């Protein structure tokens, strides 16, 4: 079993990140998306949280437990053409994702918020789809990051 020692440093994260799915999370740029942008900036996240792995775990758990409701709220509001509701939920989404140094998800959350503010529903729907795709890539990376490797 490989334990994460504190403080967490970017170098510590690599072996953990390579476990499980076998996908690599490099210190700087992980899992390039179609546009070439990174999904998770591990080094920045590590710096932001001061290497506090316990805090990171807590935040990731919270994000994973709250995001489904938040996204469901956004979907309901989009279906009801309630862009005010979308704006409110997208603001919370943007704030939550903003804590994780996840550029692609952050961008799509911001785009969703901006579209809702403009009252542009079709753009909001597009941004919501983009967020779903980026979250699909981001979630396993976060899980890998906080799950101690068993070996």
């Amino acid at each position: 079993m490989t334990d994460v020692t504190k403080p967490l440093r970017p170098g510590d994260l690599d072996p953990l990140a390579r476990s499980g799915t076998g996908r690599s999370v490099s210190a700087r740029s992980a899992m390039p998306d179609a546009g070439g942008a990174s999904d998770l900036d591990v080094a920045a996240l590590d710096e932001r949280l001061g290497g506090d792995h316990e805090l990171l775990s807590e935040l990731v758990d919270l994000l994973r437990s709250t995001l489904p409701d938040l996204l469901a709220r956004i979907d309901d509001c989009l279906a009801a053409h309630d862009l005010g509701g979308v704006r409110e939920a997208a603001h919370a989404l943007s704030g939550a994702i903003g804590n994780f140094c996840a550029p692609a998800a952050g961008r799509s959350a911001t785009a969703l918020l901006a579209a809702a503010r403009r009252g542009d529903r079709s753009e909001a729907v597009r941004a919501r789809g983009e967020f779903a795709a980026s979250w699909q890539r981001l979630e396993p990376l976060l899980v890998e990051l906080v799950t101690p490797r068993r070996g």
Partner: protein
Amino acid sequence: MESMRALIIEDEITTRVLLRRILSREFGCEVTECQNGLEALEALSHREFDFAVLDLRMPVLDGVETLDAIRQSPGFAALPVVVMTVEREEGRVRRVLELGISDYLLKPLRPDHVSDRVRQLMAKIAGARAAEAGSRAREAADGQPRLLVVDGDAGFRRLVAKAVEGWQVVEAESGLAGLKQAIELKPNVVLIGQNLGILGADLLLKKLRTRDQLHQARLCLVRPEGSAPEPDAHRGYDVTVERAADPDLMRARLAAVLPDLDGAADPVDAIGVAVAAALGQFFGMMLSLEVEPDPDPPAPGDDILGARTKLTVGDRHRPLEVVLRWDLATARRLAGVVLDVGADQATDEDLELAGAELARIVASRVKTSLEASGGRLTYSPAVPLDRTPLGPPRQTLTFRTVKDGLRYRVDFIDANEDDTAPGGPVPVLP
């Protein structure tokens, strides 16, 4: 430092958790969390908090509305509040500054940054409490603050003794006697007058300045009647006051220089703190520019743009001009956010308008601060700098932005009471 009670008002849970962790683990705070403004007002009505960290955009009752409600509540109007924002919406920032905040945090939060700001805030709160306790202890000890008047003219000393109310006045007829009395009595204010014998005014000042136990005493030079305040006259003294033979006139002049001693010292100091806070917060929230005191301040020059506004403090009858100036790069960025024009497209008029607007925001912020400490303020609308010549500054604050090195300065200038802008002083309205 004693454990403090912190109120977190934030709808987004990961940010709440981040804050709770920093506040409780790093600073030992007792933390209460609320998800919106309504919950926060409810919590505030049931218990006391030392400070609050407030998100600006929330459902139900947003941050600005919550801050407004807090400031209007007699029970917790003075609560120190740190706002968190991603906003660069000028109207929102302006309103927040007008309502008065202790500090701001830009989102997404950086724990190290949050820690620095919280540390500063807690030190400020602890300092204010210590000052308040000291003031209360002083009053309890002898009831009245002490004024030492050192002057060779017995008539003038008696006139001063009659002119001031609520002060214990002690007289000394010479510089030597004054020094002895000052050491023994530790007065709050020393008036240093004329005909002091072998230990003249400047030497007495120097001796008083070297005494640790007198470091909080306000040292005031009484200058001859009819003399104009010169920049050199201020050197080394906290303030100067013109001598008067007429008791009423002397009373009015002394009223302008004697501190209140009720927790707030010199109102000019309070203005300086409020101005510095308002500018730092505005530049931080609107331009993401961190501001620090400038150790190498630029001399004022013709190319420095800016605005000028005159603040009149309470019923002190001591008009004070607060002059804001900043360099061209800062002025352009300012125009960009305040007037929403491209930095390169800003005309001279835009720069002037943006400066005037910032001056207005600063004036509103100062008003909030003064009112919180029981003071009053009126102000005249900002006017361009080149309309009238400026007098010598009584005090100058200089700042620069940490990253870009943009500079600005604030001069505090004594003004004549009749030197008002067209229309005269007007109340600052929210």
